[in-house]
C-alpha cells in the first residue's frame, strides 16, 4: 500500500474504525505502518492529538455570568407574571404561590432581603467579636502585608534579572513565558479588585500571596532552565 493511500485512512485507523472495508484494509495498513517509519510517526502524532484533545482542561467563565443568567431569568419571569391573572385576590394568589413553592422575587425585593441579611450578619459578627479577636485580626493583617512586601521584592529582583536575558530567548519560549506571566498577573489584578471591595477579606489576601508565590516560583524555575 502506498503512503498516500494509507495516510488518507489514518484517522479512521487511529479511531479503530471497523468501516475500513473489511479485515484486509486494516491488515494492509498495519503492514505498511510496520515498515514505514514516517507513516508510523504520523499515526502516532494523530493519536497524540486525539488523546490530548480528550484531556483539554475545562475553561472557566467569569463569575458575572451567573448574575447575568439570574437577571435574564428574573426579567422573563416578571414578563410572564404580568401576563398571568391572579386566581382571586392578593392573598389567594400569595397562598397559591406559597403552597406550590413558586416564588418570583423582583430585584428590589431580593436586594432588600440581601441588605437585611448583611445587616443581621454584620451585627451578629460584631457582637461576637471580642477585643482580642480584633487585635488578632490586625496582627494577622500586618503579617500578611509584610509577607506580601517580601515576596514582591524578590519577584522584582528576579524579573530584573530575566529582563536582561529575555531578548536572547527562543521567541516561542519567550511568548509562552509572557503568556503565563500575564495569566498570573490578571489573577492578581482580580484579587486586588476584590480586596478593594472588601478590604478585610483575609482569604483574598491569602489568595494574592498564593499568586505571588506562583509568580515567584515561575521566575525561579525559568532561572534554573538557563535559557
Amino acid at each position: 500500500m502506498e503512503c498516500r493511500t494509507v495516510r488518507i485512512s489514518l484517522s479512521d485507523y487511529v479511531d479503530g474504525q471497523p468501516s475500513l472495508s473489511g479485515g484486509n484494509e486494516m491488515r494492509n495498513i498495519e503492514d505498511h505502518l510496520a515498515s514505514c517509519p514516517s507513516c508510523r510517526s504520523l499515526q502516532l502524532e494523530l493519536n497524540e492529538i486525539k488523546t490530548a484533545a480528550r484531556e483539554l482542561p475545562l475553561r472557566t467563565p467569569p463569575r458575572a455570568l451567573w448574575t447575568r443568567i439570574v437577571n435574564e431569568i428574573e426579567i422573563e419571569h416578571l414578563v410572564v407574571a404580568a401576563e398571568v391573572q391572579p386566581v382571586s385576590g392578593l392573598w389567594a394568589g400569595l397562598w397559591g404561590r406559597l403552597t406550590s413553592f413558586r416564588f418570583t422575587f423582583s430585584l428590589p425585593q431580593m436586594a432588600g432581603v440581601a441588605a437585611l441579611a448583611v445587616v443581621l450578619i454584620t451585627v451578629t459578627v460584631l457582637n461576637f467579636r471580642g477585643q482580642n479577636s480584633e487585635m488578632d485580626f490586625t496582627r494577622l493583617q500586618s503579617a500578611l502585608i509584610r509577607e506580601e512586601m517580601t515576596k514582591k521584592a524578590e519577584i522584582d529582583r528576579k524579573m530584573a534579572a530575566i529582563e536582561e536575558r529575555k531578548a536572547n530567548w527562543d521567541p516561542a519560549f519567550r511568548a509562552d513565558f509572557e503568556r503565563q506571566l500575564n495569566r498570573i498577573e490578571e489573577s492578581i489584578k482580580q484579587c486586588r479588585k476584590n480586596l478593594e471591595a472588601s478590604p478585610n477579606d483575609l482569604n483574598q489576601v491569602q489568595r494574592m500571596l498564593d499568586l505571588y508565590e506562583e509568580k515567584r516560583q515561575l521566575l525561579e524555575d525559568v532561572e534554573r532552565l538557563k535559557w
Partner: protein
Amino acid sequence: MFEWMKAGSSPWGPPASAPVRLFFIGSLFLTVSPLLILLGMPLAAQAQPFTRSFHIAPGTGEVEVINQIGTIRIISTDTRSDRISVHAKRLSGDSRINSLQNSSGKVIIEVGGRGTVEIEVVVPAVARLDLLTYKGNIEVSNHIGQIRARIVSDGDIFFTGLRSTNVEGHSHYGNVHFSGVPVNQGDYRFKSFAGRLDVKFPSNADFKLSAATHQGGLDLGDFPLKYDHQMSDIVEAVSGAGRSKVYLWTQEGQIRLHRLL
C-alpha cells in the same frame, strides 16, 4: 583541443605506477573518511541514546534533573542499590545532555537546547529527587525518598505507590495525579495554576487537609472528613488523626480527593 588529450597522456605528466596510485587512493581515503564521520556524527548522535552510570554509597542518592521539552521518568529500585543510571533519548531538535556527579555524590543531569529529550533515571528508592522540566510529563512510582517535581509550563505529574514523607508536585497548566498512602508525619504539596489535582487516598488515610481552588471546584468525594473551615472554594479538614499534612492549591483547576478502591 589540447594536445595531451589527443596524445592520451595527462597534463600533469606521465601516468603514475600502480603502487603510487594505491598510495594516492589510500591517502585520499584516510583524509576524507574522518571528515565524513564527523559530518555524520550529529545525525548519529541524535539517534543514539545517552547512557551514564554513577556509583553512590548504598542507601543514599540525590538526583537533580533539568529537562527542557520531554518527559522525566524515575524508576525506583532496591534501597541498598549503589548505582544511579541515566538513560536519555533525543527525540527531535538540537539538545545537549550533560551529566555529572558533584563532590557530595549528587548526580545532576541537565538538558540544554530546544530539542525534545526523554529521560529515564534508575535510582535507589530512598534517593532525594529534584525534577524540573519546562514541558513534559514527570512520572515517579514506588519511591520512598523526598520528591520535588515541577513542570514550568504544561505537562502532567504522576505519583503512584509512593511511601515518601515529603512530596511536592507542581505544574502550571497540567494536572497532578497522586495515588497512594500519606505516611505519618508526611508533607504533601500539590499545586497547579490551571490544571486539575487528582488525589486518591485509602479511606482510612490519616491527614490534615488544606485545599483551595479559586475558580475551579472542590470534589472531596465521600471522604469521612471533619471540617474545621469551609467555604465554596477553601477547605480545612481532617481525616483520622491528621498525622500528615496535605496541601492542595489550584487557581483555575479542579481539586478531586477520592477514596482509593
